[in-house]
């Protein structure tokens, strides 16, 4: 215990309090202020009535004097915003589960079945992760059109796995590797089939990995923009990021209040999910680059 404490504290006891204020807390608070300010500004703007929004001389812009829900009301009842939210949830959940299923099978095959050439397949999966959507969206658009999926949810549910599967597989390979091989050998001796081993032994042990991969994949599909912008054209089929930027901007008149409210409402579900699973999220973020 004493050794552990010493290791945790390291040499921090050498730094005096005033010194820590200057070298640690001051720069850290500047970082946190800059990183959080856009969110504060977004929130303040979405609750300001228009008269305060465009009058900086009578009202301090950094504060709301008469908070109002008019922008959120307009968003929910006068635009397609609710259907964008529903589309985004549906598409994110469907593509996440599809990718998880594919990735579990693939990662188990690469890591545990070790079929001939599995090392090369693992390498290909990593390379696939490096292919950016920016160079795929044009050919994908022509394919989506030929398959008759243009302007439908399927166009996104089937294309999002192209960046989710490589990531999830790579992450789950790391988790499967950490599960002792002996457990599977015992099950094999007891007469379990490969499928039984995967479902009854490997998967329950890899649940933290599954949650990490799932949370990360969900936020990635929630954030996706370029495919949704290219493959969807009618307003009621759009996702939140695309809907906010294409439908709420009307000509040269920007309704900043409802734009900010749209951005705020679109961020809240992801942030709530993230706040429940911070540790899983961080471990998937760091796990993906550690290998």
């Amino acid at each position, binding site marked *: 215990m004493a050794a552990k404490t010493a*290791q945790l504290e*390291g040499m*921090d006891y050498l730094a005096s309090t005033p010194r820590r204020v200057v070298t*640690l807390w001051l720069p*850290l608070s500047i*970082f946190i202020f800059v*990183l959080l300010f*856009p*969110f504060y*500004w*977004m929130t303040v703007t979405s609750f300001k009535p228009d008269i305060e929004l465009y009058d*900086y001389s009578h009202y301090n812009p950094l504060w709301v004097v008469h908070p109002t829900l008019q922008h959120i009301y307009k968003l929910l009842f006068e635009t397609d915003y609710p259907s964008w939210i529903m589309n985004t949830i549906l598409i994110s959940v469907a593509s996440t589960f*599809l990718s998880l299923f*594919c*990735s579990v*099978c*693939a990662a*188990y*095959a690469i890591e545990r079945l070790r079929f*001939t050439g*599995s090392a090369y*397949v693992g390498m290909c999966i990593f*390379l*696939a992760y490096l292919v*950016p*959507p*920016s*160079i795929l969206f*044009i*050919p*994908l658009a*022509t*394919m989506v059109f030929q398959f008759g999926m243009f302007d439908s949810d399927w166009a996104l549910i*089937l294309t999002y*796995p*192209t960046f989710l*599967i*490589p990531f999830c597989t790579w992450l789950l390979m790391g988790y499967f590797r950490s599960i002792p091989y002996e457990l599977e050998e015992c099950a094999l001796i007891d007469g379990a*089939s490969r*499928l039984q081993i995967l479902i009854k032994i490997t998967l329950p042990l890899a649940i933290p990995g599954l949650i990490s991969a799932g949370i990360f994949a969900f*936020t990635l599909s929630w*954030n996706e*923009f*370029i495919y949704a912008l*290219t493959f969807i054209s009618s307003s009621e089929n759009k996702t*939140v*990021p695309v809907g*906010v*930027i294409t439908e709420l901007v009307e000509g040269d008149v920007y309704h*900043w209040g409802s*734009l*900010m409210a749209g951005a705020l409402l*679109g961020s809240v579900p*992801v942030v709530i999910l993230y*706040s429940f699973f*911070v540790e899983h999220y*961080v471990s998937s*973020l760091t796990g993906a*680059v*550690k290998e």
Partner: protein
Amino acid sequence: MAVQTQSTRATAPILKLARANVWESRNLLGLVFMLPAASLLLLFLTYPLGLGLWLGLTDQKIDGTGGFIGLGNFISLARDSVFLLSIFNTLLYTVVASIIKFALGLYLALLLNNRMPFKAMIRAIVLLPFVVPTVLSAIAFWWIYDAQFSIISWVLMKWGWIDRYIDFLGQPWNARWSVIAANIWRGIPFVAITLLAGLQTIPPSLYEAATLDGATPWQRFWYITLPVLSPIIAVVMTFSVLFTFTDFQLIYVITRGGPLNATHLMATLSFQRAITGGQLGEGAAIANAMIPFLLVAILFSYFGLQRRKWQHGGRD
């Protein structure tokens, strides 16, 4: 149940054997398990990659007309001043943003590696800009950079540092620095949190030993932290460079490539030509022009990833 098994075994022993082989042969089973992932990736990733390379050699329009024109797109692009400007913009955007993201991200990681109260909460807060959808935070930046109602201009006016509002997005260079700043804001958390994970694996005893030998804080950073961290730095920076180079969302939301194409990146220009303008072939050619740059970044990562022998106690 037992009887049934008995009878199947009796009547069709060969079938049973064949089935057992399928489920016990690693290669066949591996193929079955790989099938869902492989078919999706081959159909929606490998095939479009090839299709994109082909489209870059055609003058296909969005209505389906057009055919093979060889290197025609690249020849006309080489004389296209907007395309050349977009290469310059992309390189400037990538180099400047990546260097600052790395420097500030590493600094933030070193700060977060200190012992302090509420450490987990602070780390969770720091990662927020990375979690929130880029497009939505980019809209907030668009509003922060507004010509008439920019909060930055307002604060600087209050303090008396400037005497009229800054035209953030109206002037070419202002606009370039503004989008670079937004990209840095978005990227710092990723760099900081991943580097922090690397920092946490460095045993404190190394620092203690160095301090006893009289090393200054700078020497401890330069001779312990940086060398031990170098493999993870290589990977993190490759990802960072890759995502910055192919960035689309920030530019599309904040400036749409304007003013006067000053902030057009290759990705936004290819979208504009291919989808908005309908010239699929030309857009694909612009997208393909990004590939050589990406290959350089990936090769850099590959050689950076190789763990050095001395990190396992051997000699280089």
